[in-house]
């Protein structure tokens, strides 16, 4: 009984921390419709800066600002950094497609990661404990730290303060009005830009405060950003985007579930040890799944309205011009001859590029003709890789079987996750795909008994030599791309594009929109799975990073670089991006910084997407 009570209190304390981060994300989204990936980075920066201000400069005690002053000032500074980013970056891309906004903020994540590494180093930093709160309460015979008790109170206090801010000030009224209909607010004479900037400050401040308050609880380290952002996304989706109350409710629900999961003992199924207690993202998943079925826009969320006046330019899929088809044949022919001239390193690079061509083509299938922006395509890549590797490790499967097991596992994942995802659209769908990818990642990371956790699965070697494997990859890439191309021009493909361009009209002519999109989801997943399975044999090992956010971003970059509107786009994109990436990692330690800046620059240069840019240039030639 006392264990239950303590777990309940733990859950309340965690809910507070989660709430601070998630509610900032939620209000920023509510007003600006920007899904801010960098929110986790602000949380991390809040923790690092608070560490520096309270401990880091070699002071005795807590430094001149004291413990609380340090945390508060750190949060304020990070809030100002957020304002700076809003002014120089986000302000220019409020009208850009959602995916570009996500990408731009992910660029910020990469930059902050490398900067934090350069400033604070890679080692974990231990924070100070809160003054006067070092003791513990006695809760039914168990010790419960005083600081945790304070955190339990901070959640509802911040919730109350935010309620006052939103309901008792004109600023709050304007923010709520803008969350519902920003165009109307502008027409009434309110400068949205000032409103956005101030909201961004508040949201960023809250994230950083959440980070600073973690100091006495856990060491500050470089993975804090990605660790919190997945949970925060889930909380925002579950609570309803833009809803502060919803964020608290969702944080409470998820934190409590996570706390009580810790009490579930390990059990075995068919010889596999299943440790529910270690799979902390699973309860989030379950809550999210149930909520999204019952209330697609979250517990307290509203269906989006009046999002944009301008008709958005949808990507089209053009027929391949004969010249490109010839070019395709020529490059395949050139590839066949490649082993004659390339050295081993060149062959390796070419093989890797081929694998990512397949990956990019599968994502393009989903995004272009399917119209579903996925921010978690790495899930299926990872599932494919683990499918192959686990078949090899646990069942001694030969490579042929592994190359089947991978796509099958990925397709199953696509069927399961896709069922949920096709119920949403736009940025909600993108968030959900991301959350699913994080779940795959966390299973790979946390289910150590099966996946080996961080150590990965090693020794997944192909049964053929490097040249043979190159040809195998070439065959997979060519056949995969041709099959996807066929699907796009089949009746199924037309139905899919019909569903994308106008769900209502497609419904009216008898297309079951959700089913068609679901099928497309599963198809894309299985092709990404093939790429993953190949990659597993290519590297000889599989790690959780294969399913991590950066892999999803890689795939997105390839598709967006090449352009969404053509089938050849992702192929070109994969080649260009992989080539650049390869070079970057070789020449600089700070490749994240450079890549992040490159992504940001790209988005700023082509805020309508390279596809949109190209579409405009070619529009004249079409004469339409």
């Amino acid at each position: 009984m006392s264990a239950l009570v303590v777990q309940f209190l733990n859950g309340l304390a965690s809910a507070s921390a989660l709430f601070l981060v998630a509610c900032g994300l939620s209000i920023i989204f509510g007003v600006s419709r920007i899904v801010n990936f960098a929110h986790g980075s602000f949380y991390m920066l809040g923790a690092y800066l608070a560490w520096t201000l309270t401990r880091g400069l070699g002071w005795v005690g807590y430094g001149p600002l004291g413990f609380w002053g340090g945390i508060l000032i750190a949060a304020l500074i990070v809030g100002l950094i957020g304002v700076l980013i809003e002014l120089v970056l986000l302000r220019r891309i409020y009208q850009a497609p959602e995916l570009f906004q996500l990408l731009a903020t992910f660029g910020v994540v990469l930059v902050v990661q490398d900067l934090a590494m350069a400033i604070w180093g890679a080692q974990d930093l231990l924070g100070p404990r809160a003054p006067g709160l070092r003791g513990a309460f006695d809760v039914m015979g168990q010790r419960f730290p005083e600081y945790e008790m304070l955190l339990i109170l901070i959640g509802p206090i911040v919730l109350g303060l935010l309620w006052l801010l939103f309901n008792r000030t004109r600023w709050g009224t304007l923010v709520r009005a803008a969350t519902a209909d920003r165009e109307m607010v502008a027409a009434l004479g309110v400068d949205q830009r000032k409103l956005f900037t101030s909201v961004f400050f508040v949201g960023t401040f809250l994230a950083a405060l959440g980070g600073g308050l973690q100091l006495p609880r856990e060491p500050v380290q470089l993975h804090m950003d990605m660790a919190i952002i997945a949970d925060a996304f889930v909380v925002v989706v579950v609570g309803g985007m833009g809803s502060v109350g919803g964020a608290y409710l969702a944080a409470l629900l998820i934190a409590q579930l996570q706390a009580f999961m810790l009490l579930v003992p390990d059990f075995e199924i068919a010889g596999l040890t299943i440790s529910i207690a270690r799979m902390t993202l699973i309860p989030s998943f379950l809550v999210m799944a149930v909520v999204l079925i019952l209330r697609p826009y979250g517990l307290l969320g509203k269906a989006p309205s009046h999002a944009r006046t301008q008709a958005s330019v949808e990507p089209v899929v053009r027929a391949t011009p004969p010249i490109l088809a010839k070019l395709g044949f020529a490059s395949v022919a050139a590839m066949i001859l490649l082993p004659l001239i390339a050295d081993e390193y060149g062959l390796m690079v070419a093989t890797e590029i081929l694998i990512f061509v397949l990956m990019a083509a599968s994502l393009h299938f989903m995004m272009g003709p399917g119209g579903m922006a996925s921010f978690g395509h790495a899930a299926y890549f990872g599932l494919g890789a683990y499918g192959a590797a686990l078949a090899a490790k646990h069942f001694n499967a030969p490579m042929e079987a592994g190359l089947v097991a991978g796509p099958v596992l990925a397709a199953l994942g696509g069927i399961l996750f896709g069922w949920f995802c096709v119920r949403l659209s736009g940025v909600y769908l993108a968030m959900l795909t991301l959350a699913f990818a994080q779940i795959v990642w966390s299973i790979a990371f946390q289910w150590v008994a099966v996946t080996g956790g961080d150590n990965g699965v090693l020794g997944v070697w192909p049964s053929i030599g490097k040249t043979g494997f190159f040809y195998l990859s070439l065959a997979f890439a060519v056949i995969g791309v041709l099959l996807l191309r066929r699907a796009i021009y089949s009746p199924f493909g037309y139905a899919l594009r019909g569903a994308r361009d106008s769900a209502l009209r497609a419904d009216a002519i008898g297309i079951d929109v959700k089913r068609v999109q679901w099928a497309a989801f599963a198809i894309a997943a299985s092709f990404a799975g093939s790429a993953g399975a190949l990659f597993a044999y290519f590297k000889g090992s599989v790690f959780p990073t294969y399913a991590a956010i950066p892999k999803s971003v890689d795939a997105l970059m390839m598709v967006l670089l090449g352009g969404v509107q053509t089938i050849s786009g992702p192929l070109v994109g994969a080649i260009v991006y992989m080539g650049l990436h390869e070079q970057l990692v070789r020449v600089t330690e700070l490749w994240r910084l450079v890549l992040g800046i490159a992504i940001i620059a790209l988005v700023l240069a082509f805020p309508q997407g390279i596809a949109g840019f190209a579409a405009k240039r070619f529009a004249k030639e079409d004469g339409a």
Partner: protein
Amino acid sequence: MLRVDGLHTYYGRAHILADVSLDAAKGEIVVLLGRNGAGKSTTLKSIMGLVPAAQGSIRFLDREIAGLPSHEIARMGLGYVPEDRRVFAELTVMENLDVGRQGPRDAAPAWTPEKLFEIFPNLAEMRNRPGGRMSGGEQQMLTIARTLMGNPRAILLDEPSEGLAPVIVEQMARTIQALKAQGLTIVLSEQNLHFALLVADRAYIIEKGRIRYSGTMAALAADEAIRLQYLSV
């Protein structure tokens, strides 16, 4: 007060407005008549900066406003009441009014919630009701009141009589006349000729994004051929 010259507007590639010109003098009520889809709303949105004007001049108080962001246009004293009401459903009546609030302006009536409640007595009885839980007519009154809170010199009213019961339409006409009596300049769009006849001084008729007719309300009332050609009456 307001003068539009040679306005062209596009949605994507669709050319919606072609060479639209119109003007409204101080204290005048001008109506833009046209069938559904003729381009009335697009004209008002273009003036307000909610849809970018590709070409043409829009002058308000002798200042060029084409290309300015909406909030700056609103801050010059041009109010806008959209056709689909767009009250903030979550916000109470008082909060809706608060969003529209701006400082007082020279040569424009200065409004307070209490003064507005005299013109819209229904609203006074539901100060704390969320906008989403009001009838269509009440919402229409609220959007107008909300815009008046900005103490505008002129307002654009997009189909104020649309979807309202006949009794409410008459009430709306009286309201608009009351506003005119306060010296407000009003440009409204309408499909309903009868309503226009009740309130307007002059009329423009728009069809397929082009102005086809302009004249006094009395002249239009007398010209049956024009009415039959461009209006559904």
